[in-house]
Every structure is written in structure tokens, then in C-alpha cells.
């Protein structure tokens, strides 16, 4: 390899490392901020009450398809022991699944969705 190529490799590796570190740091900050923002509703209610509130929303909007105790129904799968993160659950609730599940973004705000996620996590 020529000196210029070695210089290029060094520059590439350093830039890549700096950008990855910055990305992960920014991601961590964003996640902390999201969790802190999601907490006001959760803090004032307490974690158990949030899950209770989430269960109420679940009964209103999800139980019809997923079953009253989230065991699954004729049209939708069981939600017990979900192997996805809370952020991922919130994403599905907000956005829905094309052709399978409606979006609940208009019906529930961020805190409501967080409450439903808190309830689903109690089913693990």
C-alpha cells in the first residue's frame, strides 16, 4: 500500500469511529430524554397504576382482537411473552401493521401508548 492509501485508511477508520461514537452517544441521550419524558405521566401515577391505566386502554382497543387477557384471538396473536423492546411495542401500537392492525396514533398520545406498553410488559 502506498503512503497515501495508508493515510486514507487511517482517516477513514478515525472518521468512522468518531461518527459511530457520536451516533451511539446521541442515541443514548435521545433514549434517556424519551424515557424521562415518558415518565411524567408514569411518575405521577406510579408504575403499577400506569399498567392499570394501560390495561384499561388495552380492554378498550386491543382486547377485541388479542383477547381479554392478551392470550390471542381469532384474528390476532397472543401478546404474552413478547420478545420485542418497549420502543418496538410503542412503534407497532402507533403505526399499526399494514393490512393486519390499525394505527392507534390518533387515538392514544405518547403517555397512553407508554401505559399500554407498561401493561404488556407485565405480561412477560
Amino acid at each position, binding site marked *: *500500500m*502506498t503512503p*497515501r*492509501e495508508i*493515510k*486514507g*485508511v487511517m*482517516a*477513514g*477508520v478515525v*472518521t*468512522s*469511529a468518531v*461518527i*459511530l461514537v457520536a*451516533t*451511539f452517544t*446521541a*442515541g*443514548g*441521550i*435521545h*433514549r*434517556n*430524554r*424519551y424515557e424521562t419524558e415518558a415518565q411524567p405521566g408514569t411518575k405521577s401515577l406510579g408504575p403499577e397504576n400506569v399498567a392499570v391505566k394501560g390495561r384499561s386502554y388495552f380492554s378498550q382497543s386491543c382486547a377485541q382482537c388479542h383477547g381479554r387477557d392478551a392470550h390471542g384471538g381469532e384474528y390476532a396473536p397472543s401478546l404474552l411473552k413478547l*420478545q*420485542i*423492546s418497549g*420502543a*418496538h411495542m*410503542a*412503534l*407497532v401500537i*402507533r*403505526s*399499526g*401493521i*399494514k393490512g393486519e392492525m*390499525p*394505527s392507534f396514533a390518533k387515538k392514544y398520545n405518547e403517555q397512553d401508548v407508554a401505559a399500554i406498553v407498561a401493561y404488556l410488559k407485565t405480561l412477560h
Partner: protein
Amino acid sequence: MIPWDKLHGAMTHFPIALLLFSTACDFVSVMLKKLPFARELRSVSLYALPVAALASLGAVISGIGLAKGDLWGRGDFAWHHRFVWPAFGLLMALAVWRLVVREAMSRFGLCLYLILMLLASGLVAAAGYFGGELLLSGGGVPS
């Protein structure tokens, strides 16, 4: 509220397409050196790669916004990230390397570059595949 899902969907295809295009241009120009436009293909790949790297910043930022900062996750989400982060790092490194070296590559340097471009393309394709799986199997499609 920023529609991260729509932004990610809109931005994520540019780096994928440009990286694959840049790799294809490099390979065609190297394998078919006698083509009258082989040199031009190398130039096209040279400019496509940094643009892909810049576009990937938008895709990554919108992805972080969409995932609420969850940089790993579980299931398909984790598989998506297992391929995204190495692809992103490699793409950045290759773009900077290429901009520094330009056409002045030794034989060994060119071989290494092409192998790494192939690897980056594979990683990006796999990340895109699992991103698509997320959409189809419950990762949230804008409805």
C-alpha cells in the same frame, strides 16, 4: 411531532441504492477495463460513495428518532441493527478512504477496497432485508 417513520422510509433507500450503484460501477470498470467509459465509471463511483455516506447520516438519524434511541432491540429489530452499525461504520470509512486516495490506488489497495465495498453492500442489503421484515411483521408501517 416529527414523522420519523416516514422520514426513515424516505431517506433510507438513498444510501442503499447509491452504495450498491457505486460498488457495481467499480466492479464493472475494473473487470471491463477496455470499456470506453471505464474511467468515467470509476469517477461516478467516486462521487456516488460520499453521497451515499452523507445520505446514510440522514437514514441513521431518522432511524434513531423512529426507534426512540433504542440502538439494539430484540428480534428482527436487533438483526436490523446487527447489520446496520457495521455497514454504517464501513461505509463512512470507505467514503473517507476513497476521497483521500481517489484514483491513486495500488493493486493491493484496489483489491482490498473492492472486497470491503462488497462486504459493505452485503451488510447494507441484509440491514435493508431485516428493516423490511420489521415493516411486514410488526415493526410498524405508516398506515
